[in-house]
């Protein structure tokens, strides 16, 4: 049972800065430290902080993407942690690193946190690499790749009457168009829905535009508790609720047309009422539909003004980037209340929901 009757009101903690690298199909020039250094510098500068001001640091990355153990150890040098830093790492998307930092700040003894994530999705064959996430005894030996699994989910949704292939093409078209305004996005173009529907299937019923690009990237977020948050940002985006949930791993044990873990996380995060914008980590077009329903988003909510994961999907980064993108839009005055979401695992197995508000 989650604690709803807090003895003390939770600290108000805000996203005060966000920085990211331009997402690219294949980065051949930078290793971990070099990916992380520029985004850490830019985020700290935007928050008017130095490394010495940071009370806690947490990062997210995956050794399997880099093909080596302890990849995060090298990345740590970007912090120049001397004197040594209070620091931790999750082998997950950076959104979960942000969650860990948010919890750490709730303890009350530190006021600022740095969160970063990096991922080079291009180094291996991503579809096969992600198959290594599956149950090693019963599923991974069959090597069902990540796109084929998503296609099973899309087929289930289409068969259940939850959407049409045209709906999916419209989501792709809208995401690519939105990305035209995002200089960090990778797939940025006008795509006519009829032209998209004329394309062949990649793995039926998914066409190439229904799937995320393969992206290399990195991003960093600075969190600050009140009152420091107001020194770091003119208009901090306060995290008013955040929660994450996982579902059973076996695809056969789940209703793939729904996302019960997103719904539960949203309930615990207090994600009800009106939102001005949503940044959803939906790597596949049909997953946006599943997520919108799980979150109960009204038809007028602006979805993925950044272009979302269909415009750039750096593994381990894209979830954290959703929180950063939503927060920065609110800080720039694009709305007062937003929702950000991150996902992990095959077919939306694990989901995180973060509610952001400006004063």
């Amino acid at each position, binding site marked *: 049972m989650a604690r709803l009757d807090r003895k003390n009101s939770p600290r108000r903690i805000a996203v005060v800065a966000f920085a990211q690298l331009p997402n690219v199909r294949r980065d051949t020039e930078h290793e971990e430290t070099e990916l992380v250094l520029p985004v850490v510098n830019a985020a700290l500068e935007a928050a008017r902080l130095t490394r010495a001001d940071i009370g806690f640091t947490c990062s997210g990355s995956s050794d*399997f993407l880099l093909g080596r*153990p302890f990849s995060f150890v090298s990345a740590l040098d970007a912090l120049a942690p001397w004197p040594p830093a209070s*620091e*931790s790492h999750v082998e997950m998307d950076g959104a979960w690193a942000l969650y860990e930092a948010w919890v750490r700040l*709730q*303890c009350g003894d530190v006021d600022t946190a740095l969160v970063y994530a990096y991922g080079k999705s291009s180094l291996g064959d991503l579809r096969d690499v992600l198959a290594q996430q599956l*149950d*090693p005894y019963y599923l991974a030996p069959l090597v069902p790749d990540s796109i084929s699994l998503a296609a099973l989910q899309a087929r289930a949704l289409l068969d259940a009457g939850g959407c049409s292939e045209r709906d999916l093409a419209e989501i792709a078209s809208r995401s690519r168009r939105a990305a035209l305004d995002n200089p960090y996005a990778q797939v940025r173009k006008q795509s006519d829905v009829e032209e998209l529907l004329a394309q062949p299937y990649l793995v039926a019923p998914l066409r190439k535009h229904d799937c995320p690009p393969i992206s290399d990237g990195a991003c960093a977020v600075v969190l600050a508790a009140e009152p420091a948050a107001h020194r770091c940002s003119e208009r901090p985006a306060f995290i008013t609720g955040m929660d*994450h949930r996982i579902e059973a791993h076996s695809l056969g044990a789940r209703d793939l047309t729904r996302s019960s873990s997103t719904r539960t996380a949203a309930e615990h995060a207090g994600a009800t009422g009106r939102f001005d914008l949503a940044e959803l980590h939906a790597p596949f077009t049909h997953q946006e539909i599943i997520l919108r329903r799980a979150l109960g988003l009204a038809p007028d909510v602006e979805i993925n003004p950044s272009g979302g994961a269909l415009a750039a999907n750096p593994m381990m980064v894209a979830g954290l980037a959703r929180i950063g993108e939503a927060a920065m839009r609110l800080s720039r005055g694009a709305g007062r209340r937003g929702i950000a979401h991150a996902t992990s695992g095959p077919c939306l*197995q694990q989901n995180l929901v973060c509610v952001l508000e400006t004063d």
Partner: protein
Amino acid sequence: MEPCAVIGIGQTQHRARREDVSIPGLLREAAMRALSDAELTWKDIDAVVIGTAPDMFEGVMMPELFLADALGAAGKPISRIHTAGSVGGSTALVASHLIHARIHRCVLTLAFEKQSESDAMWALSPTIPFQPQLTAGAGGYFAPLIRAYMRRSGAPRHIGHLVAVKDRLNGVKNPYSHLKLPEIDLAKVEASPMLWDPIRHLDTCPSSDGAVAMVLSDAAGAGRTPRPPAWIHGGAMRSEPVMFAGRDQVNPRAGIDCATDVFAQASIRNPRRDLDVAEIYVPFSWFEPMWLENLGFCEPGEGWKLTEAGVTALDGDLPINPSGGVLCTNPIGASGMLRFAEAALQVRGMAGEHQVDGARKALGHAYGGGSQFFAMWIVGSDPP
């Protein structure tokens, strides 16, 4: 901050190869024992925090995804921590933050390694651009640090062997221990093959399959629990860089700073006097005297004298690793949490044959990377 206590502890039978169980089976063995100790069920758990060392050690990417079912996590939050060898300690601390921050009331935290599913030596020896290749695993990395320690401190060569004997004899008293070497003595250690000078075969830790789990609770839960809780009096993590000429890997600043932080939280002014027992991460025997100095139990250069005088023995005045430590049991990702859990068992008075009489305050310590990641906690019989 909400007080946090350990109210349930469970660990597996540790062995070189646990071919009788899968990875989920191994974790459930530890988790069920922890739940049974706390007299709770899966339904009482609000969230799960799991840690393990690099995914290459089992060849499963982000294994928490497929483990969600076995850990009763479906519908709940689960986080996966990875901070190199210190991961078991860091994982327990991250779990404790969920209680301290009043996000959850009752959290299950676990750590594991099933080394027999892959090859840790291979996984530890990749070719990384611009870095010297580590072809000899961890021993090849740490042996030069030990030689530097011997040169600085003037410690005689048998000190490491004394630790190897002491910890193995302690391990005989621990029913879960992987290595059981009741016949070990100084001559046998000295006669064992040299692996990485000065580390002989019996100076080094084994490769183990194993898991450990703890149930952490808020004050209300600790008030209801049937067995004595271990209260967390402090917790700290510190990390230092890879490429920095100012590092001293023999006596790392991150370890000193981490100890200073955790002792201050627990109001410990003189660790030698104020702590009754410590479980510290000693994968190679020589790290006992090295960490005694790094943790501030004595002045630099004096650690080996404590070891030689028997101060760190089970019946000494500062028992170190009464469980047998990493030298007896080394499921890498779990080794740090085993130190944290064994420290908690001591202050609960539940350590059985390796119980230190009257232990009321204990240190759990873990380290990782090239002596650069540290995690520590202080647990006590009394609330903080």
